[in-house]
């Protein structure tokens, strides 16, 4: 069955303009939600849809909303929309921000109604200057049409959307790192509890959702939870945006149902591997998620299926590597990233990410011994489950993922005292 899109406009087009978005049925869902649905009914509908967060962790969105304290407290309530898209291999939210910005605004309006938020703060990574400009223009149009602002959409409530800019730190994609950053501080994650629903932006109740997660909400309101559940698998519902990059003929972002086979995504949608080369490795959901080998290409891209093969769906950012790619070098690039991005507050992460990078570099240069491989595994053991946030876990999963899945290639580097793949990319 051909899948139907509801996140992205047709290929090569955009709905940046309010009129274009409205002609495609835009803001009908928000109108309906605000006029006909109570916040409780909305939360129930989103819970029933099974919508899970698209930022990497896959937490059930409706459940997250229900963690907010009952309205009527002394403090204002906020949405913090995570648009700090920085997980390597992930470039999907940019498609929404640049091509369908009103979809996000409509989703924010509905979410704001559900959790009784006064405003949404959209934290956009600092490098996304084009996305920032386009979303900013869409917000201005929406204000002009009284979709946002005082007594918006004919209600007696005020709701506005404000844009914030990051400045290049990956850790600000972690929800409490983002909140710290939004408050004008270093983006060092907070200890939990308290969770953001209780103590978020400026100490107020806050729901943190990813751009894509919020962008599913209008379709759920318009078509209903049952329709949404009919797409995907029982525990991974709806479409999602798969980003495909690396060694493929047609890299890009593809809107497809959760549970689509990885093989179909790589070979049909992304056009297969260039130059007749063979597939070797796939990172399935951003570089934090353990790598898969070519033999696993028949896995379905949903939460349960990926867990069964020892990885995770993450952000759905798929990085494809062909037979020329050296797995030690790939691990180096990823370890270098985590070493650069650790915020430094937890010792295990700060020191561990540096050690992983050094050890991998020496193995790649042919200066390692078999003991190094054991040390890499040991360091990862000290990094997992020990820290305030999941960056340390991610760095460990990535390194052990490559080592365990491609151990013979690591051993060959040690034995031959050089990289055995002369055609490989350089790290």
């Amino acid at each position, binding site marked *: 069955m051909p899948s139907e899109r509801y996140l992205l406009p047709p290929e090569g087009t955009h709905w940046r303009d309010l009129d274009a978005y409205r002609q495609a049925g835009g803001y009908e869902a928000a109108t309906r939600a605000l006029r006909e649905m109570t916040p409780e009914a909305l939360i129930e509908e989103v819970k029933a849809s099974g919508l899970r967060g698209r930022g990497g962790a896959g937490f059930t969105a409706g459940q997250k909303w229900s963690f907010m304290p009952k309205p009527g407290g002394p403090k*204002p309530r906020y949405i913090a929309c995570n648009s700090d*898209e*920085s*997980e*390597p*291999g*992930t*470039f999907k*939210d*940019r498609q929404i921000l640049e091509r369908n910005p009103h979809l996000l605004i409509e989703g924010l309006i509905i979410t704001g109604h559900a959790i009784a938020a006064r405003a949404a703060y959209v934290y956009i*990574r*600092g*490098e*996304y*200057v*084009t996305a920032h400009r386009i979303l900013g223009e869409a917000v201005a149009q929406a204000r002009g049409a009284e979709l946002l602002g005082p007594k918006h959409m004919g209600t007696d409530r005020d709701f506005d959307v*404000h844009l*914030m*800019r*990051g*400045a*290049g*730190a*990956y850790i600000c994609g972690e929800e409490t790192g983002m909140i710290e*950053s*939004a*408050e*004008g*501080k*270093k*983006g060092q994650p907070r200890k939990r509890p308290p969770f953001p629903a209780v103590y978020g932006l*400026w100490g107020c109740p806050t729901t943190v959702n990813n751009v894509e997660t919020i962008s599913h909400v209008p379709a759920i309101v318009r078509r209903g939870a049952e329709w949404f559940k009919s797409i995907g698998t029982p525990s991974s519902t709806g479409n999602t945006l798969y*980003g*495909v*990059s*690396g*060694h493929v003929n047609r*890299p*890009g*972002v593809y809107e497809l149902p959760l549970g689509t086979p990885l093989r179909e995504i790589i070979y049909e949608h992304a056009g297969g591997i260039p130059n007749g080369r063979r597939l070797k490795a796939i*990172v399935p959901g951003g*570089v934090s998620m353990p790598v898969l080998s070519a033999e696993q290409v028949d896995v379905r891209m949903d939460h349960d299926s990926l867990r069964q093969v020892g990885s995770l769906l993450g952000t759905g*950012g798929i*990085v494809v*590597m062909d037979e020329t*790619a050296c797995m030690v*070098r*790939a691990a180096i*690039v*990823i370890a*270098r*990233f985590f070493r*650069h*991005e650790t*915020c430094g507050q937890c010792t295990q992460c700060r020191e561990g990410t540096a050690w992983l990078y050094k050890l991998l570099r020496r193995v790649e240069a042919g200066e390692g011994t078999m003991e190094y491989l054991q040390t890499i595994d040991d360091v990862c053991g000290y990094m997992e489950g020990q820290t305030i946030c999941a960056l340390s876990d991610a760095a460990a999963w990535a390194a052990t993922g490559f080592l365990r899945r491609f151990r013979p290639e690591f051993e060959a580097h040690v034995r031959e005292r050089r990289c055995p793949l002369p055609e490989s*990319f*350089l*790290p």
Partner: protein
Amino acid sequence: MSSERTSPVFSQQVRDAILAEIPKYPEPRSALLVALHLVQGELGHVPLEAQEELATILGIRPIEVREVVTFYPMYHEHPVGKRNIQVCVNIACTLNGARDVVRGLERRLGVSSGGERTPDGNYSIEEVQCLGSCGTAVCVQVNNEPYIEGVRADRLDDLLRAID
């Protein structure tokens, strides 16, 4: 210290833009990241004197500005080239030859990445982490301008002409 200074470090225009940003948030400090982008956009970097001036505007201590400047990779406390060429060296970009792009730029400009400027002060090269443009690797960003995507090591003369 800052009260003794007679000439401000950044323009009235930038100051006004910062003041206009403050009311969006419950606390002025939240405007810091945007304010730093505005200052860097004008000066090319954020020197200590500018940090002090920002601290005064936002009602925080200078060290609270400096810890932010030094935490976030996009801010520069020291001058970089007028055209700071940032090349993504993360996984999708290295798979598509980002290392050759960096080396080719280093050769053409005669500087190494990470801190050096050409003698005329016009160029510097910086290796940066994933820019979120993996489908159009190799991705390059000059200063804080829109991305240049699909960069190839064998077409660097075109790139340098385009960004001049």
